[in-house]
């Protein structure tokens, strides 16, 4: 009605609304009792954004406001949300905009300008890959990496776990051990050399660490060349878009960014028993240990435990592994036990179903002497043992507890400190992403962290939509007899598909290289798990034998392509190799047929 249009009171309110819209970063027309309004206001509180809320039900002329808002926006209901002068809509629209990240963009506009497009916390496998990729795509990027020293004081350079205290030194020391085996075999092949063969820990340690030094430098140079700003400081959130960076000398700096990637990785878990941090070491210390560890007790049955125990034994050390329950939890148990049995036949002692309760120092030294007291998990039996070194390898904890995630509002699984993300590695806070070992329910492997980091950067800044595929990831455990796998463990496959729908083909085999050397017959083992409901597609691949990583990689590619048992059979083997066994597997587990090799 025209008369109303001219009502001066009404015009006053209209200009008041306009004024409010123009002057507020976030404006919510609300009613104090409305649950949707509460939800929206809470969201902004969580985001740490100041929100100007007008409770229409508490205002004298609230209904006029609502009328006019209807006229101006076409929206009758509350909440009615504006951000930086733009009409967003009601509760659903606002929440959706938040989920899509649009809200953050709108909030960013007209307000803050950030120091960086992207800040990556953690310069390990995932962090370096994502920061470099983002910089290649033209973003202004900072990566922070800081290594907190171990209780023993060990620290290392740029590049994260894999390079410094993981894959690289581990594989090189495994190789050291295998050379020892090769030397024993060599005599059978006619090589003659002095009976006395010794290993020098210091030479190995220095050579391995020199190589790592060169890798650290290489990473540093490539960050410079790609214009990634690298800061050697510990980062923690102080606000959703702001971090505090503290360097070695305690100097604090603050940086802001539009987006963040968390890639802080994990560190070894301790036992929480007397003497563990004082006297024991972890894999973080082992690879740069200044002295040969001597008689060693490894506590744990993780792959880190078995790998480290394996190569230490391979160097000729007296090694015992104390296991609480099963070996290699999460891996195919049939395979895990075979890998363990092989270690046992090669001199590694296992103490099963015991947990340590205290560690005492008998004598300091390099190495010293330690007394370990352990308790049975099944009875009251207590045992004691004396070792030079105790290596704890009972798992790793995500480094998410002290990085101010509460200040940024990032949700963490309180049970394990892991960060849940969606299939785009996005946390519950839309501008904060996470990759690598800290992810809930994902693979803890370097190539996975790298792939996820690269693809994430491409999606964020390169217009790509390709997501990281966490299915059929091949992997290898470098026990003395290596174990490679891809796809499901047998027990997992049974759980998902049911025994009756699976066909499991398996075979023992004797690598040609071992025959003349006369060792390890009927130790190597191959197994594939096929889904009968789907053309006998291979859904699980397991290989215990030499060069497992090299063998498994190609089959991993085949499984990505959906290879079936038929196609494997139609593949011609390469003779004489170990991998060829997969092209000729006939005996199924169901049949109970004989799989032992009887030599020539």
């Amino acid at each position, binding site marked *: 009605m025209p008369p109303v249009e001219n009502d001066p009171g009404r015009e006053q309110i209209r200009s008041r609304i306009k004024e409010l819209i123009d002057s507020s970063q976030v404006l919510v027309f609300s009613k104090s009792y409305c649950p949707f309004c509460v939800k929206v206001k809470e969201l902004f509180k969580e985001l740490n954004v100041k929100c100007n809320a007008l409770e229409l039900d508490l205002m004298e002329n609230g209904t006029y406001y609502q009328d006019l808002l209807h006229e101006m926006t076409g929206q009758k209901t509350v909440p009615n949300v504006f951000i930086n002068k733009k009409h967003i809509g009601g509760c659903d629209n606002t929440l959706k905009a938040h989920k899509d990240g649009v809200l953050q963009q709108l909030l960013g506009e007209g307000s803050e300008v950030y120091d960086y497009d992207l800040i990556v916390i953690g310069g390990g496998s995932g962090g370096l890959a994502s920061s470099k990729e983002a910089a290649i795509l*033209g973003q202004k990027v900072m990566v922070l990496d800081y290594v907190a020293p171990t209780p023993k004081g060990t620290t290392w350079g740029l590049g994260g776990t894999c390079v410094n205290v993981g894959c690289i030194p581990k594989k090189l020391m495994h190789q050291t051990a295998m050379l020892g085996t090769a030397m024993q075999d060599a005599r059978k092949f006619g090589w003659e050399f002095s009976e006395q063969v010794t290993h020098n820990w210091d030479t190995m340690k220095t050579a391995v660490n020199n190589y790592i*030094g060169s890798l650290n430098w290489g990473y540093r140079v490539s960050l410079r060349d790609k214009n990634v700003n690298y800061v050697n400081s510990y980062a923690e959130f102080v606000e959703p878009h702001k971090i505090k960076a503290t360097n070695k000398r305690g100097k604090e700096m603050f940086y802001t960014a539009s987006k963040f990637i968390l890639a802080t990785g994990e560190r070894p878990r301790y036992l929480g028993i007397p003497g563990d941090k004082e006297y024991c070491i972890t894999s973080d210390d082992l690879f740069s240990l200044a002295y040969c560890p001597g008689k060693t007790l490894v506590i744990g049955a993780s792959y880190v435990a078995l790998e480290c125990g394996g190569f230490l034994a391979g160097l000729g050390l007296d090694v015992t592994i104390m296991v609480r329950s099963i070996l290699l939890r999460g891996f195919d148990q049939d395979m895990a036990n075979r890998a363990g049995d092989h270690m046992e036949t090669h001199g590694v002692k296992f103490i099963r179903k015991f947990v340590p309760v205290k560690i005492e120092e008998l004598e300091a030294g390099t190495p010293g002497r330690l007394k370990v007291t352990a308790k049975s998990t099944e009875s009251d039996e207590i045992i004691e043992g004396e070792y030079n070194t105790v290596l704890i390898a009972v798992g790793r904890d995500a480094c998410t507890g002290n990085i101010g995630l509460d200040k940024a509002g990032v949700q963490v699984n309180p049970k394990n400190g892991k960060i849940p993300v969606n299939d785009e590695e996005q946390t519950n806070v839309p501008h904060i992403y996470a990759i690598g070992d800290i992810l809930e329910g994902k693979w803890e492997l370097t190539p996975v962290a790298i792939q996820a980091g690269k693809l994430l950067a491409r999606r964020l800044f390169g217009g790509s939509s390709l997501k990281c595929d966490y299915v059929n990831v091949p992997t290898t455990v470098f026990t003395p007899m290596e174990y490679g796998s891809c796809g499901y463990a047998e027990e997992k496959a049974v759980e998902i598909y049911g025994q009756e729908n699976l066909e499991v083909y398996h075979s023992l085999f004797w690598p040609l290289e071992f025959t003349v050397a006369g060792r390890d017959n009927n130790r190597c083992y191959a197994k594939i798990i096929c889904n009968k409901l789907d053309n006998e597609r291979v859904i699980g691949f397991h290989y215990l034998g030499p060069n497992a990583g090299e063998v498994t990689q190609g089959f991993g590619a085949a499984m990505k392509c959906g290879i079936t048992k038929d196609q494997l059979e139609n593949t011609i083997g390469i003779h004489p190799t170990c991998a060829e066994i997969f092209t000729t597997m006939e005996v199924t587990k169901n049949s109970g047929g004989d799989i032992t090799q009887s030599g020539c």
Partner: protein
Amino acid sequence: MASRLLMRRVCSLSVRDFCRRPVTVSSSSSYSSSLTSSPAVQAFVTRSLLRPLFHTRSVSFNVQDQEDFTDRVVNSELPVLVDFHAQWCGPCKILGPRLEKAIAKQKGRVNMAKVDIDEHTDLAIEYGVSAVPTVIAMRGGDVIDQFVGIKDEDQLDSFAKRVSE
């Protein structure tokens, strides 16, 4: 975005082109002003005052920090060969002594500075070091020559000679 990219490319180019790096003004003045306070500083100043006398005896020194580098390399009156090396680098261990020998033959006409790239990463990054050993020759604060990798004694002799001229 594009302009920023370009900017950065230019910056990094200039670093890699070994432009004369900005000289920090602080060094000498701050030392003289605190001359009386600390014996360590005093010793340092005395040593640096006396240094010319030692030329023929000790031809090389380890760079202590940025300031030291500015003082003894960038502001040096003599040309200086800077040997960027690392503990973990095998070839560096061979090159270092060879280089010292070559410098000694120049009888004080050129100095040699050693920079451990892990201890002084910023310096190495700033001077565009990608691989070690990298040797750069500086005169009057400018990089006048450089090489990467190992060289035999004759090559080093002629390198040192060229730089000292």
